[in-house]
């Protein structure tokens, strides 16, 4: 019989760290990654040799980038593996780190995401099957089309959709690890450079560079290494899926709905229990599609909920309190791991000016090109 993560031994996030997400620079990826890992080790109050295994979420650094980075922590001889799953590379690395601890193979495992912006070859362009105009349809074009479809179906205006960016830039302004740390008015968002359809530059995530690290551990390890159990956050569920052929409805939203439902069910909660939600808001339209798909509000009602402040910090469920991909940034490999770290911060009540009051339960969601989808629920014990 197959088992859910929750049915194996408990896994806890015990250490988190970042290198700020930022515009492309001369900084070596080694510096980016080591900064995040050392911050996570310091946060957990453990030393590097304690870490038994490492999962590296990266899509853009090239083959075998990881050991050249990890060896500078003192080469411990422990196993490492690179995980590439497009935008969800970090989420995938985290899931497999959790599985390794839950299965009892290791007690302390690192998931680190590290990337710098580099030219991308999308593998599906090499299948040998030609296409009409895929060279003209990049991710933002895909989401401009979905924006047009959503706006028509639910009769919402471009300025309604842009409100997502206003909220998320406001949250990013309170996050020292965000790439964009400037609050924006609706006028500024709408007046920005037009990209595709009604999407403007400030409604699209910046792809820069950075790193995020999360250390997961078993209850045994928490005891053995004297880790502060009151700051350990339980990984309550892990769900992953890939796209199936669906005809009428939108593939990314359908995939998100199914994956989040599985994560909520495994965690034995409903969407109403979520206090914080980090979502794949690479483009404004995605937050509307996915908050609806997550079950936070009925289909077509996300703009109404957004306007009512339900998704603000202090609202019913803080959506993208970190700033989300739109403001915090989307350096690819780090993104999914940074979401887990943000939720951990929130559930520990250590998020400072962007703290969601009394946050107890959070969910992290990512979609990767293909499409693939991940959802993880984190929960504090009391």
């Amino acid at each position, binding site marked *: 019989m197959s088992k859910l993560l929750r049915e194996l031994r408990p896994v806890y996030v015990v250490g988190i760290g970042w290198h700020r997400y930022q515009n492309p620079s001369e900084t070596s990826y080694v510096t980016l990654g080591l900064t995040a890992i050392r911050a996570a080790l310091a946060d957990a109050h453990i030393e590097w040799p304690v870490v038994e295994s490492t999962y590296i979420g990266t899509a853009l650094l090239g083959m075998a980038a990881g050991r050249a980075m990890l060896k500078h922590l003192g080469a411990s001889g422990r196993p490492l593996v690179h995980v590439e799953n497009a935008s969800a590379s970090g989420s995938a690395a985290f899931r497999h780190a959790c599985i390794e601890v839950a299965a009892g193979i290791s007690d302390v495992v690192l998931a680190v995401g590290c990337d710098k912006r580099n030219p991308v070859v999308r593998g599906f362009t090499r299948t040998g*099957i*030609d296409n*009409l*105009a895929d060279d003209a349809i990049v991710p933002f*074009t895909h989401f401009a*089309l979905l924006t047009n*479809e959503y706006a028509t179906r639910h009769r919402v205006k471009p300025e309604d959709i842009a409100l997502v960016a206003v909220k998320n830039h406001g949250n990013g302004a309170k996050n020292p690890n965000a790439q964009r740390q400037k609050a924006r008015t609706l006028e500024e968002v709408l007046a920005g450079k037009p990209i*595709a*359809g009604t999407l403007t530059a400030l409604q699209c995530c910046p792809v820069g560079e950075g790193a995020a690290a999360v250390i997961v551990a078993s209850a045994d390890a928490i005891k053995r290494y004297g880790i502060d159990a009151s700051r350990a956050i339980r990984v309550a569920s892990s769900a992953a899926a890939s796209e199936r052929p669906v005809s009428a409805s939108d593939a990314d939203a359908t995939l998100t709905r199914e994956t989040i439902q599985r994560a909520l069910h495994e965690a034995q909660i409903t969407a109403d229990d979520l206090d914080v939600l980090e979502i794949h808001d690479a483009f404004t339209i995605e937050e509307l599609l996915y908050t609806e798909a997550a079950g936070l509000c009925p289909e077509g009602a996300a703009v109404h909920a957004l306007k009512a402040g339900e998704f603000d910090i202090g609202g019913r469920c803080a959506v993208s309190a970190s700033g989300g991909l739109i403001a915090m940034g989307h350096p690819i490999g780090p993104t999914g791991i940074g979401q887990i770290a943000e939720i951990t911060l929130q559930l520990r009540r250590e998020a400072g000016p962007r703290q969601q009051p009394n946050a107890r339960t959070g969910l992290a969601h990512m979609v990767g090109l293909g499409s693939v989808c991940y959802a993880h629920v984190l929960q504090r014990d009391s």
Partner: protein
Amino acid sequence: MSDASLPLLKPALYARGERAPVLLGGRCECGHIFFPMQTFGCERCGRFGKALQPMQLRGHGRLRAAATVHVHADEKRPTPFTVGTIELDDGPVIRTLLLNASPDHAAPGTEVEAMFVEVETSDGEKVLDLRFRPVVS
């Protein structure tokens, strides 16, 4: 007007039909209709090889969404241009370039049809490529 005798840019994807261009799709024994034609395997049921047979799809459908692109990295594709999501009458949903598709003429639900336009390859050769445009009634 384009010269109808010019070679096609992507002859594996479309052909001159009797009256209008057709798309070269396929049909699986399970009934799944897809575009473009391939024999790797059916996305719905996994049958492969001879279970997948070529099927000409009518170059006609309805627009589900359109977007005019203002920023594009590839200089060979100068902006602005308009792309659309089209539900073909035969089933598959495709994405491709539109012509005469300003938001006024190309609201979701608009009937669209395939046509050929003359384009130049990187070698300077004149060829025909496929576009979709709103049907003028």
